[in-house]
């Protein structure tokens, strides 16, 4: 794959995200040396200085591998996504935000207006002039531009085609290392790339598969919040009325959260073939409510004060209703 002996090029970019993904990559310990040894890093703002125009100057397709983390929140995010798409052979949506919108996409439940109100007029904000971000501003020095704030957070594949998805908030370091190993093997001709569109660095069952907690047939009679109870350390959390997202969340993390006594929050996104994460989790939870009486069911449901937030915490951007969606594979009826 490498052209005329020079090392293949590597890029990484941080869009609307917290930076955890970047740290996770740096956190792969000595594996980072392999990256350095085998790749030429051409663009990685957090690690090295580079200008957008340098990337623009590169020939299309000249970067072999780009790890793109973060969701698309504004026009800058989108422009760079498009740019990197053009320049890269393999574009990986890296981390929950790029794959499914991540936490930032919960903002899609409200309007931009409401977001600004909260940020610029909230109780903890001191903004006497009521200043709000303006995409364009005529300053004495000249016209100023800041990127345009989009009305909704998008996932990476809602703006450009994506080759692979690597979920996690952030992706677990051993999984990153494994993916890097794989790419190296592919480069050495010792392995083939997975089929395009695949999820890499994760399992294909769900978190329960890796969770060691004992479980029984499920019957939920009330939902409780973890801060209000002392959960049984060995028993499935969901059975105890705690809204663990494990059943619906792709495996691969090693069930870190539930094993540590915390609830799975769903950062690894939906399992293979699942169209809408929240719907799957919701239907599972609703199915095992132990009542046939509507009033009683409503009472039990009162224990989930914010269902949309609870079921889509990391996945709103990829939901069917509240953002763009992963287009469903259409069955090809006839060859074009």
């Amino acid at each position, binding site marked *: 794959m490498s052209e005329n002996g020079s090392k293949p090029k590597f890029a990484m970019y941080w869009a609307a995200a917290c930076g955890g993904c970047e740290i996770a990559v740096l956190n792969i310990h000595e594996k980072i040396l392999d990256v350095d040894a085998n790749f030429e890093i051409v663009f990685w703002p957090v690690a090295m200085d580079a200008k957008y125009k340098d990337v623009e100057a590169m020939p299309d397709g000249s970067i072999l591998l780009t790890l793109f983390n973060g969701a698309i929140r504004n026009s800058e995010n989108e422009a760079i996504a498009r740019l990197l798409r053009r320049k890269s*052979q393999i574009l990986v949506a890296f981390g929950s935000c790029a794959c499914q919108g991540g936490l930032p996409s919960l903002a899609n439940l409200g309007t931009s207006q409401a977001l600004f109100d909260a940020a610029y007029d909230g109780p903890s904000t001191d903004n006497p002039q009521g200043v709000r971000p303006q995409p364009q501003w005529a300053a004495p020095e000249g016209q100023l531009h800041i990127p345009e704030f989009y009305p909704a957070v*998008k996932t990476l594949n809602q703006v450009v*085609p994506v080759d692979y998805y690597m979920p996690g908030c952030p992706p677990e370091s051993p999984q990153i290392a494994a993916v890097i190993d794989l790419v190296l093997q592919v480069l050495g001709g010792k392995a083939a790339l997975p089929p395009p569109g695949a999820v890499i660095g994760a399992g294909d069952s769900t978190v329960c598969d890796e969770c060691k907690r004992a479980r029984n047939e499920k019957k939920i009679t009330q939902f409780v919040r973890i801060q209000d109870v002392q959960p049984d350390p060995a028993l499935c959390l969901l059975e105890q009325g705690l809204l663990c997202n494990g059943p619906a969340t792709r495996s691969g993390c090693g069930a870190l959260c539930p094993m540590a006594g915390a609830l799975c929050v769903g950062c690894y996104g939906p399992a293979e073939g699942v169209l809408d994460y929240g719907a799957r989790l919701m239907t599972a939870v*609703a199915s095992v409510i132990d009542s046939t009486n*509507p009033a009683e069911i409503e009472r039990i449901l009162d224990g989930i004060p914010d269902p*949309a937030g609870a*079921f889509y915490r990391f996945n709103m951007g990829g939901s069917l209703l509240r953002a763009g969606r992963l287009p469903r594979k259409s069955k090809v009826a006839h060859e074009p």
Partner: protein
Amino acid sequence: MTEQFEPVIIGFTCNWCSYRAADLAGTARIKYPPNIRLIRLMCSGRLDPTFVLQALASGADGVMITGCHPGECHYLEQNYKAMRRFLLLRRMLTQMGIEPQRVKLVWASAAEGARLAQEITAMVEEVRALGPLNWGKVEVPAFSPHPSSLKEEVPA
């Protein structure tokens, strides 16, 4: 263009009750508006909320879920599971800005052709009054191309 907004409603019916009720409405020539399009499931318990979301996301203005009356499920008790999902779904949809009138749960036995027709008529009226599902409010981001188009965009 018609002056009147004509909603499209997707109806999920149970093979044993409401689909038969729809058959009966037909046999009895009971009239209802053509705005509803039915899908047959084996049971209301088959109703995966994803179907509802998919229908709404794909342009339906409303979804009607139908099944046997409580206690009369052909599969004994699966309609209760449909009810639980529906009750939770309704809460979630409200948060997502979708008016609760757009998604309905209706019990109709195989004998209730007239009732089903009446429910359909009422729902079409209600949704018509609401107008098209307001995607402006939902703020759908711009379209993203299909992954199968990767080939063209990514140089080999």
